[in-house]
């Protein structure tokens, strides 16, 4: 990797993160109150985030197929895609626990990062707990 290549990767990473974060904030994903009312089917249900997520998946579906017409990504030698296929216990148990945490705090990792600078005490305690959770899961699943 040349120095210039490394700088371009950093630039692409930063630009993508910035775009992702602005998207999260403008759509309301980084506001836990809005996320929780999206999850509250029995209350004052706010379905708008379903369109945000579906829209992002559709844009990605089209853009991925466009990207994969190339033999390699612009800044790396090859595409690195997940290869696991089996629907196993860690996948389902992990997703279930993730959902419970999401339903309690209204935060998933991306929105928490993009809201960190807003400095709410809830975000400031969520983040270290998130890291501890990541670390603890590694004890269960060494290759993760």
């Amino acid at each position, binding site marked *: 990797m040349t120095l210039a290549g490394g700088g371009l990767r950093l630039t692409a990473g930063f630009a993508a993160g910035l*775009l992702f974060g602005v998207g999260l904030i403008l759509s309301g994903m980084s*506001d836990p109150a809005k996320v929780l009312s999206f999850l509250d089917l029995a209350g004052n249900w706010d379905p708008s985030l379903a369109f945000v997520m579906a829209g992002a998946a559709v844009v990605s579906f089209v853009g991925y197929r466009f990207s994969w017409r190339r033999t390699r990504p612009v800044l790396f030698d090859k595409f690195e895609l997940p290869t696991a296929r089996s629907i196993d216990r*860690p996948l389902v148990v992990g*997703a279930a626990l993730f*959902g*419970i945490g999401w339903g309690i705090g209204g935060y998933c990792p991306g929105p928490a990062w993009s809201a960190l600078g*807003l400095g709410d005490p809830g975000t400031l305690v969520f983040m270290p707990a998130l890291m501890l959770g990541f670390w603890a899961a590694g004890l269960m699943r060494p290759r993760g």
Partner: protein
Amino acid sequence: MIGLSAVLVMLFLGRIAGISGITWGAMTGPLSERGWRAAFLLGLLAAPLLVLALTGTAPEQTVPSSMPGMIVAGLLVGFGARLGSGCTSGHGVCGLARLSPRSLVAVLTFMATAILTVFVLRHLP
């Protein structure tokens, strides 16, 4: 914009824009993979500043005020995301875009438990 960002990551870097993987990988992954991940996280952190510059107002949000609740939430989200190989972005956006059956199962599972959790916390006595 979230979708466009995921496409940027695929087109230029050839990777999945899953925030859990990016977060953990920025600290523990191979060195050649850490740089762009750390830069991505810096971009996420800088996003409120750009929103402020564009709209003239700081983003508004209401975060649950229970500190024990937010700690438990963080632990579960972190633990579950790594055990389950992904979160809302990795499974919900990138995985569904790849038509991954694993991601579809993960999304249906975490949506169900999240909705159930909110129901229990808000509507049961």
